[in-house]
């Protein structure tokens, strides 16, 4: 055992022997998180511990500081970067902290880090309320996503997740407690900006603090009224979906033959303040959805036939209209949408009134079924910049022969939020053993463009991009040092 015996025994006394282990198998299973290809950077922790309360987290962090043992926290393991980068770290697994309190009157929920979106959403839907489910999936942590960016397609109407972050209970890297927003003045999570300190931006940074600034143990998250009708699940296995009440929802798939028209239509839909979800649908994504359940081979068979048919400048929008409050509202939204579509020469087609991904599931991970592993570049910008970014990324990609992924230039996804004030551009490329080097180079080229051409990514710590983005890495390091002088909260 590499963690000092005395420290380990203290940890046992904090959580009870059942909830801490230094067995190599327990620790090895906690080595890798999702979305990160296994590498030597990811180290096997020295022990894993599962606290059940904020007090236990504080006590663990204080032990870590006393013995100078690095620690890192995680919860659902569906995360981008929370893994031990140092040997003999303490892995704090927060999934037992899964309490949910719902304040129906004041429309917020209080959740611990172990609460997955699907669990919270289920409890809310029963009450005619709703939260968002991020693109990565309903199996991810509400707390981790909300503290970070928290993007979800219904953010078109409800904003990005971090704007719904209210009171925060935060165990600082040295074990001290910081309560933010209204929580600092009273035992109430109802407001994030005050009274009291509001340092939520520090936690969010550009891509989340990834456990480098201690442990957020509880948050208040804003929730919204929703339709009273039940969203009924149907279908087995990969065919499952939610049936939406047709008097309240309507999906439209709209094809434009000029990207400019599609973008202008998107702006206009925003100005008109209609819709719950508005996004572009790259044809390759649509093909993935349609071939669901036929596996990798089935996808490629279909894509080889459909991909070449994608017309240059073709841009498909997918819009979910929402009769918030009344059926009349849906009628109004539909009329406005169809007027806008007509003005910009689009071809609208009503789609089945059901949902696979926006309310509960969000199966982004299914992209991996087409083979290899998906790697993405993401930026949060204005719609115009997202489109420009998409175009340049395509130009960069075109230089690669053979192509990294035969996508016919159609894997760049533009998903706007807040009625079009901000947009995410996410471009996916598939990595496999054969093209891993090319993909690494592609990432470098994209970052080079960001550094020199005014784009942005969510990876400002990148050595190419960071220096031109206000020396973000240096600032991040300064903040880290101020909060964590012992450098034991997820160092490395």
């Amino acid at each position: 055992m590499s963690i000092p015996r005395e420290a380990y025994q203290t940890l046992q006394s904090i959580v009870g022997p059942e909830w801490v282990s230094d067995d190599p198998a327990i620790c090895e299973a906690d080595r890798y998180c999702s979305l990160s290809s296994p590498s030597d950077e990811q180290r096997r922790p020295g022990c894993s511990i599962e606290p059940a309360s904020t007090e236990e987290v504080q006590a663990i962090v204080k032990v870590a500081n006393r013995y100078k043992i690095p620690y890192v926290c995680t919860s659902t393991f569906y995360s981008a970067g929370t893994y031990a980068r140092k040997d003999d770290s303490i892995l704090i697994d927060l999934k037992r902290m899964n309490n949910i309190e719902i304040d129906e009157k004041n429309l917020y929920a209080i959740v611990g880090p172990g609460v997955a979106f699907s669990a919270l959403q289920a409890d809310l839907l029963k009450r005619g309320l709703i939260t968002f489910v991020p693109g990565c999936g309903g199996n991810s942590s509400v707390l981790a996503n909300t503290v970070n960016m928290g993007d979800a397609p219904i953010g078109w109407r409800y904003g990005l997740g971090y704007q719904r972050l209210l009171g925060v209970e935060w165990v600082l890297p040295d074990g001290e407690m910081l309560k933010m927003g209204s929580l600092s003045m009273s035992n109430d999570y109802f407001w994030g900006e005050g009274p009291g300190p509001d340092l939520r931006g520090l936690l969010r940074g550009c891509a989340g603090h990834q456990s480098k600034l201690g442990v957020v143990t509880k948050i208040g998250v804003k929730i919204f009224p929703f339709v009273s009708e039940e969203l009924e699940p149907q279908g087995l296995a990969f065919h499952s979906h939610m049936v939406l009440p047709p008097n309240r929802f309507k999906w439209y798939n709209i094809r434009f033959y000029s990207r400019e028209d599609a973008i202008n239509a998107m702006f206009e839909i925003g100005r008109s303040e209609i819709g719950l979800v508005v996004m572009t649908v790259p044809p390759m994504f649509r093909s993935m959805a349609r071939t669901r359940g036929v596996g990798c081979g089935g996808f490629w068979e279909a894509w080889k036939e459909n991909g070449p048919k994608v017309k240059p400048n073709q841009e498909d929008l997918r819009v979910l209209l929402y009769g918030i409050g009344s059926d009349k509202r849906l009628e109004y939204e539909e009329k406005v949408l169809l007027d806008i579509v007509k003005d910009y020469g689009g071809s609208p087609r009503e789609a089945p009134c059901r949902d696979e991904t926006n309310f509960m599931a969000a199966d982004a991970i299914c992209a991996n079924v087409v083979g290899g592993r998906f790697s993405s570049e993401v930026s949060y910008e204005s719609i115009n910049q997202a489109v420009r970014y998409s175009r340049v990324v395509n130009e960069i990609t075109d230089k690669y022969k053979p192509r990294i992924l035969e996508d016919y230039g159609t894997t760049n996804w533009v998903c706007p939020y807040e009625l079009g004030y901000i947009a995410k551009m996410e471009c996916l490329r598939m990595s496999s053993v054969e093209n891993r080097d090319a993909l690494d180079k592609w990432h470098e080229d994209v970052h080079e463009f960001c550094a020199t051409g005014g784009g942005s990514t969510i990876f400002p710590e990148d050595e190419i991009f960071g220096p031109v983005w206000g020396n973000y890495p240096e600032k991040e390091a300064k903040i880290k040092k101020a909060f964590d002088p012992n450098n034991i909260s997820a160092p490395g």
Partner: protein
Amino acid sequence: MLKVDEYKHQAETCVRCSYCKFPDLNYIKSSRFSRQCPIDTRYRFNLYSAHGLLHSALAELSGKLEFTPKLMDALWHCTLCGGCDTKCKRNLDVEVLQVIETLRCRCVEQGKGPLPEHKMLADNVKSSHNIYGADPKERLNWMPPDVKPARKADILYFVGDPMSYRRPELAQATVRLLSKAGAKFMVLEDEWSSGHELFATGQLAPAKEMADHNIKAIKESGAKTVITSDAECYKTLKVDYPKIMEKSTEDMPYTVLHITEYIDQLMQDGKFKFNRRVPMKVTYHDPCNLGRLAEPWYHWEPKYEPPNIAVGKTWRRGEKGVYEPPRNILKAIRGLELTEMERHHDNAWCCGYGGGVGTAFPDFALWTAGERIEEAMTTGAEAIVSSCPNCKDILGRAADANNAGIKVYDITEVMLRAIR
């Protein structure tokens, strides 16, 4: 058991998204019943999940990890319910369950497993051809004197160890039902254990011996259709036997039907009707072995084309389980009201008995069943009905242990009550 290259490939394909720990997200109705995996829900460490076990499989294969006490504990606590497998295949198509089964086989091969309780099962089948070590001459003692099976028939009733020795009332209910349905059926004079728990615990040599014997006996009997009312026997005859023979289910010399499939088909054909009211509100528990694990087996020699195309593979993703026949039957009984639990069909929570867990970890099995009982009680049902003797056994014990006041029936008992 997967061959090494395929085992490694499957384990490597996991992206650790943790979807394997949840029911189909679209079906989650409350945070209380929002988990799928019993070991994950009870023990919480990541090792106690498909995600953790797949990574352990890779680490063990590469020599980075041995079968430590915790790895053994997690591996043998898994009920092999397959919830993880079908959830993964909603997105990623990893053969999760086959990797876990292979990890068990590797544990046995290396002499680290199985557990003593599992070893005893193998000793028992060796000495007496049933897992209990009971006298093989008493195997058919349950047969009611008024029921006379045929000497030769197209239908063969495969009874299985649990009903032959522990739950004779369910075997009796089954043959009475077959008789009422006018089926001419026979039973094997020398039925051996199906070997279900031996397959589950990685003891493939004695399991194959059971399979060889039973397949030969079925073939020699001349029966075309094997009917069973035991979900574990159903899955073993339909899936495990062809699998160990490196064949597909369709290539086996018999067709397997669960009693619910048989009766449902008769009902659809207008040849069978329930004629007695059973006034009762019930909920149905899908046994894993009759639900998501019950799809036909398709033999496949691994062959891939880039980027990851499994050439010629037919997938088993849980959607073709025997879900509707038992429900059709319950709905056809006058006076009986069927209500669903939150987790049903391919999302059903395991009863806790499977995978050798009921044998080696009865307390954990009871805890898992207790969760199911609690879920059943939220429906307001007076009874929980299942289609497997071991489900009935462990759910019944959990209901008693929790003073739940909910009755537990096998579907054969309910069907029998519904006919004069």
